[in-house]
């Protein structure tokens, strides 16, 4: 056998393998969607018949709608708070370059790298001390800690895209710190900030471990409710709720993809 034919065989194998891996990556997620429209209470694929009964049951139960709204009520403030703090951190680290900015940036990045279970068991006693355990502010703070580095990374990337001379120019022209940020810096990093905010919301919307420790039955999020239900029984209601969450995640994913395409077009011109 020559190098040529064996090379061609290897290439065919590589393509088949890659397609198989990509299917493995996305297939399980989408198996859930048809199940949520099943007419039977047991899970089988493909479903024996179709109906919307599980969506109806889900809406009629009070815990699912409540958990859904809780997730929104927690995710939106998390996105706003972590976008603000993450953007400030990125500005300070990327533009600052002063003595001590490296250890400070390590503190900013670290929450994303360490296992969340440690943060969860560390935050719970502190939140309990302040009477915030189980409250909205408690879990919002917990999620914000991990979302700050997410925003930091996307905003820092946008800041590195252009030279600080724009900010110096604004300042020599008479703009103070706030005016410089609002009129010059922010318009130039806007896409990074918005993408960071969406990432933060998505993280909070999907997060389980912190929510497990810092929410109460009244403030519990959708992932926590799913988790609690999963440990008891696997019914198509969970599939319906999951499909709903998937829809929201993919709308946000699409928004980010469009924003990034817009950004890459803008930087190319």
């Amino acid at each position, binding site marked *: 056998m020559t190098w040529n034919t064996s090379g061609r065989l290897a290439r065919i194998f590589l393509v088949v393998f890659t397609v198989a891996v990509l299917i493995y990556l996305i297939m399980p997620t989408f198996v859930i969607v048809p199940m949520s429209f099943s007419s039977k209470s047991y899970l089988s694929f493909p479903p024996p018949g179709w109906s919307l009964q599980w969506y109806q049951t889900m809406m009629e139960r009070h815990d699912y709608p409540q958990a859904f709204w809780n997730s929104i009520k927690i995710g939106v403030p998390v996105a706003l708070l972590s976008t603000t703090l993450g953007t400030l951190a990125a500005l300070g680290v990327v533009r600052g370059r002063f003595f001590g900015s490296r250890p400070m940036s390590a503190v900013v990045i670290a929450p994303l790298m360490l296992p969340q279970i440690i943060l969860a068991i560390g935050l719970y006693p502190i939140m309990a001390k302040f009477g915030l355990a189980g409250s909205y502010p408690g879990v919002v703070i917990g999620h914000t800690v991990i979302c700050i580095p997410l925003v930091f990374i996307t905003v820092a990337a946008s800041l590195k895209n252009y*030279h600080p*001379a*724009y900010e*110096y*120019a*604004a*300042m*020599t*022209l*008479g*703009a*103070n710190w706030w*005016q*410089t940020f609002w*009129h*010059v810096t922010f*318009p*130039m990093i806007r896409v990074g900030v918005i993408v960071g905010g969406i990432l933060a919301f998505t993280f909070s919307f999907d997060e389980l471990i912190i929510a497990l420790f810092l929410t109460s039955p009244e403030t519990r999020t959708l992932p926590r409710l799913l988790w609690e239900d999963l440990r008891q029984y696997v019914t198509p209601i969970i599939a319906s709720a999951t499909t709903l969450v998937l829809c929201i995640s993919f709308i946000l994913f699409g928004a980010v993809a469009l924003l990034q395409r817009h950004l890459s077009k803008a930087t190319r*011109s």
Partner: protein
Amino acid sequence: MSGQGARIEYVDISKRYGQVEALRRTSLTIEAGEFFSIIGPSGSGKTTLLGVTAGYVPPTTGQIIIDGRNVVGEPPFQRNIGMVFQNYALFPHMTVAQNIGFPLRMRKTPRAEVAERVRKMLALVRLEEMAERKPGQLSGGQQQRIALARAAVYDPLMLLMDEPLSALDKNLREAMQDEVKQFQTVLGSTVLYVTHDQAEAAAMSDRIAIMNHGRIVQIGSPRDLYEHPVARFVASFLGEANIFDIDKVSPHASGSAIATRHGFSLVSAIASGHEGQCICVRPEAVMLHAQRPTGHDNVIEGRIVDATYTAGSLRYRVELASDVVITQRTPSVRGAEMFAEGDRVFASWRAEDTLLVADD
């Protein structure tokens, strides 16, 4: 909108980054309405001096006194200084009119006045029809003029320019030199202009400071610096220079007699006896002859190693000794005979053109 520019006095100004002394203690005065250039290689401290003046680089020591007021310690946005950046730093998300109006809006100028002054400024740089374009849609030269207009629209005390023409191609650069100079004359501003291009600085400036290793080596008019360089660095940075190393200097009837390290002796009109000097002869001062000339101060036999004809001038490289090749330049005359490579020639120059400068 024009007014007299301010007078700027630097007293003992210096800047240190950790162990690196970017700017050594420097004192300097720029007169009101003067076009003052700083030239020097990269890392010579000229950009640091600019940053210190604009205010975004805090100096380690010293004062900057603008019209009698020390501005060190003030943030850039309180200094009322205009700056043109190397790549213009025009805000890409604003139109040309918004860019020029930006400093006025930051000063809470009434809307009607902003519009009026932007219009006048656009007229001055002859770009009225570009008002609603974005900077990305303009050519390099047009962006350059908008950057000038934006830096000057609020009658700043002085204009700083950081290599403003370096991004333009050669022909446009020469046209823009006149443009910048005319702009300054109309407005009467004090200009501090930083460049690494000595020809550009010479064409525009009233005075030039040459910087090297964080300090000013010499200040003077362009002609002064070219004709009377004080140091080898100045002589070779500003224009071309033939440099000879000195072995021994002794007094002579018309100045000094100098034994070079290259095996020949020279006569200079400058009386000297300083240690650590070298000789500088400008290429235009050198004359070439086919026969040994008589009555010339310095005559050395040599061989042409290279002859080039460039628009308007002839340029020869002549080997005088095994390790000495000098450059000679003369304006070309129509149909004049040229020496050819390998020709034996006699190079000569006057004792007045044998400059003694500090060796660095």
